[in-house]
């Protein structure tokens, strides 16, 4: 084996640009205000192979460089070429991967290398590693090469080699070497002696990153004291009275908070210090989420599969069913925003692929919560600046979604200081499958039988991703492990996805699930419940590198893998299909009915756990919850003095530029939202295609306008006053957004994704009782609103340890519920968007504005600017949801009937912001009067965020019909759309707002554009 270096750089010349260098230059300007004259780039390849350098050099233009646009050199550094780099730079920085980190360009290059230099089999050791060199000219004083390097790489996964100006002057260029993986040593399975003190048990759990509490450790201890267990173990030749390390790790993964949702399943003693309530809740999940949905399932025929599979499935029409799942990937995204977010999106895609017998992902959603991108305060150790988290997460989701060919149709970005401690990265995916497969089986039902062969399909198992599930069940610390971080490989996954869907349609799959948290331990372990047993041989599992120990193979969360069961008679067809698609598929296990999770390494049994104990053995947590209403300083707008001439106008411009309200277009445009040719309402709408979309609408069957609406709601700051109100507001917002797009309110389903700070009282979390009470209230409101809306929660997820640090420096996120809705849209030709359609349109408010300014965006803005002491006050409530849903039904059917083409929900910033956005989308003015929109103060009617409200535009010829259609529902005439380019809002005779549309466009669009332009 020799290592050949190839370097490639863009040609210079008329019309040619070094775009990679330009991107770095623009980002330095946008993020740090640093002007650099020029940045150039070199892409490097280190090829480890048995092919001589001279042969590679001769073919370099066939693979590594594009001769039309690039130049290349072999076995030297480009920076030594005075022809290409005549001027001495101020700095040169090379960034490459650390050993063992996924290098997607490198893998692709190696694939291409084998096309040019055919080799009988991929050589075990041969591969390609890539790197980037950035060369800086005209650095301003004080900008050091070391600092630049720190902005260009993440030392958790990458290495940087730096030449500062001194080194550059002496022609000492940054040369990076091939990242040889350190050898791993296989450690034979060990017996773990649990006959130790309680303190030692806790210590074992903590030092081994097991994340098990004392009672759980004792339960495991008890299992191995059972004489019957001991004798059955002796019969298969495994240590009798103690677990192996494989078993302990397997139990830790399966029993982790991440996999078992122990807080949602716990028995809670709940006290309300205000009402005097003192009660016991036996599982929040079963009580408030599962039971209501199961009750609804009895009343409708379209809820096909809820809770038990990787995503919930509903019947969409006679031929097709649809499913949806959302996940979070918060901890990995905090450590490596790019890789963490990418594995988040491609991971939830696999949940869809693993639903039923395999669904096809057709739409992604993503919702992020970050610290403010312009944060100027201190940052705790080991945390990235919010702007860097935003860039990295965005890039990861962009690459993951775009390369997988799945459109991103809906999402949101929310900002709050507390998300500096832990960003929230929600990724959702919608899938579709034929209700019946060609062989007549119903696609949403898995059909495994004992004797089926279990394949691991897709990527290989490596040292990456060990302990992801248990790690995410712990708080983030400075010592958080790098092995918990991975980079996704969308192309490996895409190949697998193509192949799996063909195998499904050929009837070859009896059972399928994805490998996510807990790896094979979870995927095979869960599927083994169907047949009540399995036997795995870990020695058969293909590895990225030799030397992994048995427990590591079992629990590694290496990406891009599905676990698929196939009948023995279908195995050869299945393997041939995998070969055609160049997808690795390896039989690693067999389903049995033995009642045992039986794991071998070659002939040795290394784990032998009863399926029942593995899945149901975890003891129920007993937790304490105590509610008292938070009393933050009040927000009282009546003390605010406005300039009489300008009145509320300057406030509206400032509100439009608030990160929570401002346009995210420059970010969202970088997602493909139209692949599959189905997106009928896109993320941005209106005459210039830049107004806000309320919900995504897709028509996934080509040629057929039957649609599906996808929307979301999130209102985390309401938790500062009442997490129950936060939950109700999130659900209502998601439903309102869907209604704007014309969802059939009688056929929609929801997903609850809870992200909470640690809610278990302890020394680290002295306020755990209160945080748990917030969770109780949120779930009670969730049940109340969902029952009223007849909105089943068909899938959900919780992430319960979203804190950073401890003690005084602890940062806990605000309790956050993301509620996603997907529902039927009868005909996408009849939908509505938020942009005003033109002068003469008649404008109405649906709903009522109440005195509800507590925790509003306006309150936060005026508190931050020192104009208000606090944000306290009445938070928006949903007292009568049964009434709301009848109004929503009336509005939605008016849209289906073609009476309404313009609808926008009022959320952050209330009526004022909603009206401004509608003018921006249509590039037209409007003259509106908010008199009569509610018995509340002018501040509340203009800026309040009362729920249940929409602004509607209706063409004059439909006005009478619309008003009649809505009779009995709260409806107030606001005014008319004008061609004046001015938004004028008054309250009777009082002028409130008078703004030019172009000024609003600028304020709204420029605040979050961090692209640095195109110059």
């Amino acid at each position: 084996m020799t290592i050949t270096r190839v370097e490639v750089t863009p040609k210079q010349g008329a019309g040619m640009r070094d775009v990679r260098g330009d991107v770095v230059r623009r980002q330095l300007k946008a993020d740090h205000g640093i002007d650099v004259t020029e940045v150039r780039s070199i892409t490097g390849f280190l090829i480890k192979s048995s092919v001589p350098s001279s042969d590679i050099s001769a073919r370099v233009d066939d693979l590594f460089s594009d001769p039309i646009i690039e130049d290349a050199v072999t076995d030297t550094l480009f920076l030594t070429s005075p022809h290409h780099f005549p001027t001495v730079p101020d700095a040169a920085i090379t960034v490459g991967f650390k050993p063992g980190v996924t290098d997607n360009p490198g893998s692709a290059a190696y694939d291409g290398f084998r096309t040019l230099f055919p080799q009988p089999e991929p050589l075990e050791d041969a591969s390609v590693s890539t790197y980037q060199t950035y060369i800086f000219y005209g650095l301003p004083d004080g900008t050091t090469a070391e600092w630049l390097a720190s902005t260009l790489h993440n030392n958790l996964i990458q290495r940087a080699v730096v030449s500062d100006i001194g080194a550059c002057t002496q022609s000492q260029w940054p040369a990076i070497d091939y990242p040889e993986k350190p050898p791993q040593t296989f450690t034979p399975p060990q017996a773990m002696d649990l006959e130790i003190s309680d303190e030692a048990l806790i210590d074992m759990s903590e030092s081994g990153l097991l994340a098990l509490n004392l009672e759980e450790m004792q339960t495991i201890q008890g299992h191995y004291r059972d004489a019957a267990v001991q004798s059955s173990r002796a019969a298969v030749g495994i240590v009798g009275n103690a677990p192996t390390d494989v078993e302990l790790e397997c139990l830790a993964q399966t029993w982790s908070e991440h996999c078992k949702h122990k807080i949602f399943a716990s028995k809670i003693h709940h006290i309300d210090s205000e009402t005097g309530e003192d009660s016991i809740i036996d599982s929040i999940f079963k009580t408030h989420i599962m039971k209501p949905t199961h009750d609804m399932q009895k009343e409708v025929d379209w809820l096909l599969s809820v809770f038990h599979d990787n995503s919930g499935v509903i019947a969409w029409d006679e031929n097709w069913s649809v499913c949806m799942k959302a996940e979070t990937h918060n901890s990995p995204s905090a450590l490596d925003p790019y890789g963490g977010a990418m594995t988040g999106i491609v991971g939830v895609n696999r949940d869809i692929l693993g639903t039923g017998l395999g669904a096809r992902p057709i739409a992604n959603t993503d919702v992020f919560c970050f610290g403010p991108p312009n944060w100027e305060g201190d940052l705790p150790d080991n945390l990235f600046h919010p702007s860097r988290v935003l860039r990295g997460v965005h890039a990861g989701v962009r690459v993951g979604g775009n390369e997988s060919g799945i459109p991103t149709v809906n999402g949101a970005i929310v900002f709050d200081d507390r998300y500096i401690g832990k960003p929230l990265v929600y990724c959702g995916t919608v899938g579709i499958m034929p209700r019946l497969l060609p062989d007549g089986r119903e696609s949403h039902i898995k059909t495994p039988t004992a004797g089926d062969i279990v394949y691991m399909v897709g990527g290989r198992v490596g040292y990456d991703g060990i302990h992801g599930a248990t790690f995410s069940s712990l708080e983030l610390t400075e010592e958080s492990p790098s092995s918990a971080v991975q980079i996704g490989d969308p192309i490996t996954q895409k190949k697998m996805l193509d192949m799996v869907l063909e195998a499904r349609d050929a009837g070859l799959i009896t059972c399928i699930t994805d490998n996510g948290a807990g790896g094979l331990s979870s995927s095979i372990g869960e599927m083994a419940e169907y047949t009540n047993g399995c036997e795995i041989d870990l020695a058969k599992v293909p590895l990225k590198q030799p030397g992994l120990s048995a427990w590591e193979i079992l629990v590694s969360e290496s990406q891009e893998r599905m676990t698929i069961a196939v009948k023995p008679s279908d195995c050869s067809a299945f393997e041939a299909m995998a070969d055609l698609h160049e997808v690795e598929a390896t039989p690693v296990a067999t389903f049995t009915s033995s009642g045992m999770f039986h794991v071998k390494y070659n002939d040795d049994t290394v784990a032998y756990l009863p399926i029942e104990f593995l899945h149901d053995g975890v003891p129920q947590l007993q937790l304490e919850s105590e509610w008292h209403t938070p009393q933050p300083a009040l927000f009282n707008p009546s003390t605010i003095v406005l300039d009489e001439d300008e009145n509320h106008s300057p406030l509206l411009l400032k509100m439009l530029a608030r990160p929570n309200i401002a346009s995210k277009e420059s970010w969202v445009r970088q997602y493909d939202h139209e692949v599959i040719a189905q997106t009928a309402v896109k993320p941005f709408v209106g005459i210039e295609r830049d107004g806000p979309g309320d919900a995504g609408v897709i028509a996934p069957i080509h040629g057929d306008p039957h649609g599906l609406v996808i929307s979301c709601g999130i209102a985390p700051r309401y938790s500062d006053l009442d997490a129950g109100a936060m939950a109700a507001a999130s659900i209502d917002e998601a439903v309102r957004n869907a209604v704007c797009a014309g969802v059939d309110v009688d056929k929609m389903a929801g997903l609850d994704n809870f992200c909470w700070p640690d809610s278990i009282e302890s020394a680290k979390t002295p306020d755990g009782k209160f945080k748990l009470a917030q969770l109780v209230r949120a779930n009670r409101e969730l049940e109340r609103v969902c029952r009223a809306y007849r909105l089943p929660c068909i899938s959900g997820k919780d992430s319960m340890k979203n804190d950073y640090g401890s003690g005084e420096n602890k940062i806990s996120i605000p309790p956050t519920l993301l509620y996603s809705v997907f529902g039927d849209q009868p005909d996408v030709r009849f939908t509505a968007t938020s942009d005003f359609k033109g002068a003469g349109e008649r404008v109405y408010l649906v709903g009522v504005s109440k005195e509800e300014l507590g925790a509003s965006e306006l309150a936060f803005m005026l508190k931050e600017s020192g104009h208000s002491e606090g944000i306290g006050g009445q938070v928006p409530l949903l007292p009568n949801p049964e009434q709301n849903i009848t109004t929503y039904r009336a509005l939605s059917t008016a849209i289906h009937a073609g009476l309404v083409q313009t609808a926008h929900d009022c959320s952050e910033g209330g009526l004022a912001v909603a009206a401004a956005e509608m003018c921006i989308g249509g590039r037209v003015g409007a003259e509106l009067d908010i008199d009569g929109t509610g018995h509340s103060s002018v501040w509340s009617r203009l800026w309040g965020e009362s729920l249940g409200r929409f602004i509607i535009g209706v063409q004059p010829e439909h006005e009478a019909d619309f008003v009649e259609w809505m009779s009995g529902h709260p409806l107030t005439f606001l005014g008319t759309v004008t061609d004046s380019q001015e938004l004028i809002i008054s309250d009777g005779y009082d002028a409130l707002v008078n703004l030019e549309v172009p000024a609003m466009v600028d304020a709204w669009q420029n605040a979050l554009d961090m692209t640095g332009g195109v110059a």
Partner: protein
Amino acid sequence: MSAPKVAVLFGFGINCDRETAAVFDLVGGKSERIHVNNFVQGNRVLEDFDILAVPGGFSFGDHLGSGRLMGNRMRFALREQLHAFVAAGKPIIGICNGFQVLVKTGLLPGPNASNPLPDFVQRASLTLNDSGRYEDRWVTLEFDSESPCIWTKGLQRIDCPVRHGEGKFVMPSTTDFDSLAANHQLAVRYVDPNTPVGQGATDEPLPFPISPNGSMRNIAGVCDSTGLVFGLMPHPEAVYAKWLHPHHTRGSAPGPTSSEALGEWEGEGLQMFRNAVEYVLSKR
């Protein structure tokens, strides 16, 4: 008369295969999604088809340059089959990543008219957008009415989405462009929607985002000298119906007022695929 058979390639990260297959079916073609390796391994033969479509996507992640690795697979493994396909006068289209693949195999813009059969020499490239960003946005396209391109017959101006990070069309010298222009091979270009229809095309670089990528001479797509092989960065298949146009809720999505396929809801992009199907039928 039997429907023209359309091979729509997929695999290795191609991801617009389903909609590309669907639009051919809507206009009377009979499409089949075929994994690249089925042609490479000889399970299927290209000769059995009348039309070849290379759809959009991210083949091999676009690492080492968009379309490069897929281009190599085709250049080395399907060379004879592709040569025979073109020699038989059968239409080929590459959309987005498919265009990048055809450029990097050398099928586009191809050799000059005196010897038009494929020589698999790369003469142009598609490189990173000047903006440095992948973007999904709608652009306005105008077609060269004198182009020999069989795919663009009768098309004047359409709205269409682009979804790419590497769409800047470049060639080494201005004479390369001049000879393509003389043959009317610059079949489709980005234009300012405010220009009169038919007068939008210009050689001067248009500003972002009218030209989304800084393409030389605002080129969005080119054909070979025979007019049978055509590639473009924008996605006509993504506007097969008016309900996919961003302005459909404003009642102002452009397109034909009636069609067999979609009634009054046919979008502006579908005609391109109908042109190819009708071309095949006309040659029978």
